[in-house]
């Protein structure tokens, strides 16, 4: 065990109880009376991996439709009622699940349960072409804003498509393609709801300043009469060999401000010790300001502006290690790539030093403390472990497992996985000029990170999951 900042035995005093309604809805309750707030979080076991060819983006588009009213909630009533009650809310869609959450002042918990039950049970009563057409346009603008209109915006999508082969359920990202978004029909949306939005395909976690008995009674009252139904399409096979077997490479010539080297490594599936070990390996290599890649490329060689490496954990298929290096000045990609290869090879041969492992574990622990410091963060983690691994209690012991990993395990997974024949590489070459602008001679109007982010700005609504790093 590492050198923990807090005592994680007994999950630092946190507990959760599990229940199941007759219709199959699983409930996870966790009391915490420090602050008068209560988080409600629902995970539906459906994500972009369940989509079929020609209908990519449907899970996420559907998530937007869940905010467009149900039998007893008109128009934007879901947003209005939650915000008017002092709550905050949103929904996100990832490869493996769709989640919805309301964090409420504790005295408004019952309202959130009523709202979630109404749309779980009766969404189709309100769903119409007008909502679909409107939210289709909103999602297309979301896609433009977050992916198509920003430099490197489609890098993640491209890497995913390289790392998971054609036809694989993870080959496309949750945002979907413009063509498929255009093609989605009301019939598709209705069928999607009927297939996936069933109480027996969901987990509801409620965390915070709650009375468990009362909360259970409310959950039963509002959700209990929603009929269970089975219509889910079987998941397509997502198995892949541990190693890609050969390096995949794509060079993009685009109007981007700097050269970039990105790579996706195939890593062990979430829920395994090997995945925790891979997370630590990648943290030592590329997370933070004392990582090996940062020290080498940004501090010493000064060939890169930034060097990041992180893990996107996936439970249903191999996880993805995503490296992102932006070149400094006129540095050419091969020079950076040679240094990266050298660092990864050295790490695979030697493993982390004791100090590096201690730092990586301290960082992962801090990130865990951060997620668990809010009732909403805890509710989301409980749902995650319940939906993806069948046991919400695993959320409380996740950090202990990461602290239990040894240097030998980190070295082993690095040697097995962080190899050139186990990666998809994406190289960006700017089209603007044959040579990137020489530093010191760039546009004199300068830049700053202003982005006018005034206070009072609320949620940007139903968004796609931050599955990116």
């Amino acid at each position, binding site marked *: 065990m590492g050198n923990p*900042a807090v005592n994680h035995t007994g999950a630092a005093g946190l507990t959760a109880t599990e229940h199941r309604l007759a219709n199959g809805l699983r409930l996870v309750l966790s009391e915490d009376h420090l*602050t*008068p707030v209560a988080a409600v979080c629902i995970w539906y076991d459906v994500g972009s991996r369940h989509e079929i060819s020609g209908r990519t983006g449907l899970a996420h588009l559907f998530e937007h439709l869940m905010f467009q009213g149900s*039998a*007893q909630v008109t128009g934007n009533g879901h947003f209005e*009622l939650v915000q*008017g*009650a*002092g*709550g*905050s809310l949103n929904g996100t869609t990832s490869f493996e699940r769709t989640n919805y959450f309301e964090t409420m*002042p*504790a*005295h*408004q918990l019952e*309202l959130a349960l*009523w709202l979630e*039950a109404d749309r779980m*049970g*009766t969404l189709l*009563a309100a769903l119409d072409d007008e909502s679909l057409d*409107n939210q289709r346009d*909103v999602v*297309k603008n979301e896609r433009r*804003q977050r992916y198509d*209109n920003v*430099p490197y915006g489609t890098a993640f999508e491209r890497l995913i498509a390289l790392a998971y082969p054609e036809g694989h359920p993870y080959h496309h990202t949750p945002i979907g393609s413009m063509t498929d978004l255009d093609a989605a029909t009301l019939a598709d949306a209705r069928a999607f709801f009927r297939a996936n939005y069933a109480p027996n395909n969901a987990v509801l976690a409620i965390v915070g300043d709650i009375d468990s008995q009362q909360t259970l009674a*409310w959950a039963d009252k509002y959700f209990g009469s*929603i*009929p269970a139904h089975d219509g889910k399409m079987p998941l397509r096979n997502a198995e892949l060999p541990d190693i890609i077997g050969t390096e995949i490479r794509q060079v993009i010539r685009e109007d981007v*401000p*700097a050269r970039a080297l990105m790579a996706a490594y195939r890593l062990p599936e979430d829920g395994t010790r090997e995945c925790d070990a891979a997370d630590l390996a990648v943290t030592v290599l590329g997370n933070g*300001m*004392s990582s090996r890649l940062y*020290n080498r490329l940004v*501090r010493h060689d000064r060939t890169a502006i930034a060097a990041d490496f992180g893990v996107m954990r996936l439970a249903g298929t191999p996880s993805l290690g995503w490296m992102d290096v932006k070149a400094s000045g006129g540095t050419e990609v091969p020079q950076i790539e040679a240094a990266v290869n050298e660092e990864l090879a050295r790490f695979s041969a030697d493993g982390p030093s004791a*100090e590096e492992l201690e*730092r990586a574990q*301290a960082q992962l622990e*801090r990130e865990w*403390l951060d997620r668990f*410091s809010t*009732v909403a963060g805890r509710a989301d983690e409980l749902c995650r472990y319940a939906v993806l691994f069948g046991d919400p209690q695993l959320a409380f012991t996740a950090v202990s497992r990461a602290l239990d990993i040894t240097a030998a395990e980190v070295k082993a997974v690095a040697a097995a996985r962080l190899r050139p024949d186990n990666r998809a590489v994406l190289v960006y070459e700017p089209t603007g000029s044959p040579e990137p602008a020489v*530093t010191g001679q760039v*546009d*004199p*109007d*300068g*830049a*700053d990170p*202003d*982005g*006018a*982010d*005034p206070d*009072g*700005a*609320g949620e*940007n*609504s139903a968004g796609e999951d931050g599955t990116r790093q």
Partner: protein
Amino acid sequence: MTDADVTMDLHPMPAAGQVRDWAFPAPERGGLPTGLPVLRCERPGQQLVAVEICLDAALDAEPDGLDGIATIMVRALAQGTARHSAEEFAAELERCGATLQASADFLGARVSLEVPSSRLHRALGLLTEALAEPAFAATEIERLVRNRLDAIPIELANPGQRAAIQLAHELFPESARMSRPRQGTAETVSRIDAAAVRAFYEAHLRPVTATAVVVGDLSEIDLDAMLSDTLGRWAAESGAPALVPPVTARDDGRVVIVDRPGAVQTQMLIGRLGPDRHDPVWPALVLGTYCLGGTLTSRLDRVLREEKGYTYGVRAGTQVLHSPAPDDGIGEALLAISGSVDTAATRPALDDLRTVIRTLAADGLTDAERDMAVQNLVLVAPLRYETAAPVADTLADQVEQHLPDDFQAQLYGRLGETSTAEATAAVVTAWPEDRMITILVGDAAQIRGPVEDLGIGPVSVVAA
């Protein structure tokens, strides 16, 4: 609705339960013998402790021609000290599981530390080294300068950041620091060297004009002993706080297009100058701004997003830029409306946006809208301030803005006392239809003509 679509028992919407008491945490104000004021705030159960150091090194203090030096200086604090090299310092911080961030802005510079409480002592020791004994090695400053120069084109390629730079340029007179990018231009940044950084540090960083804010679960901690052993070692000569002059802004209605040929969206940023938080109108402005563009169900998104589908979201907000103590003059805030719309929707979106503002001016807000805004802004507080970091951040904002330590605590009551008419007046005054400067980052070949046809003032085009 068809019966076939409702197969569950429907229940009436439940009523709210009893509101549970919550108040914005009151900090305890003290100080160290070196003159460093300390605000501390106990937040039971918050194992991640947040520390904010407010430094009197605002951008207006930067020497002529060295825009960006405040940012480089404050970042350089963590790039090596008398006891640790830059690499060792980063490693020691990460060994604590800590994060350290540094930034400089018009209100001052800020160093923010977050760390598990069991390692607070060690992390405060490192923070003290950074403040009291920075190395400012020439090689590290060169690296930061070069890194900054590399970052500039990347930021310029981001439509939101590009729009913000152009807006500052259009709003403020050239002589005002506010008219120029916060982190400098390639020209000014490339002039920065280690000697200049050290001179700026020595001129502006001193405990008496700084403030430390510590928030979290401090129950197991002897904070006084810890502070005297760490931040208490930071000493420097006394000095008076800097005074920043007031700023004026143009408000002749016009449009500037930053040309990005082929852009699939137009980034809109509309700006004006408004009052700071000292102004009695502030609570009304907060309410009115929320009703205009605070959320997805505010007036702008109700039309532009939820009716027309032109955008993923448009927001209105405020950002305080200058906030002297009341005896030292009047402050200012940037009022902004921002969002991205697909290129073809540029003209109709601007047209609808102005119709929303015109309708608001003509008919005012409704009581229901005002009530909902108050409910949201007041009742969301326990949630917004659940963890230590946002509490520390708000307390530090108050310090930087020369506001009383109970400003936020009092604001909730004042919001509740603000009438619909007052909120309407504040937001209508803030956004006169014909006195807004509009920045559009997008494809000029496609949007210039349609925007000119709108007749909302002269339209000019600049290169990206």
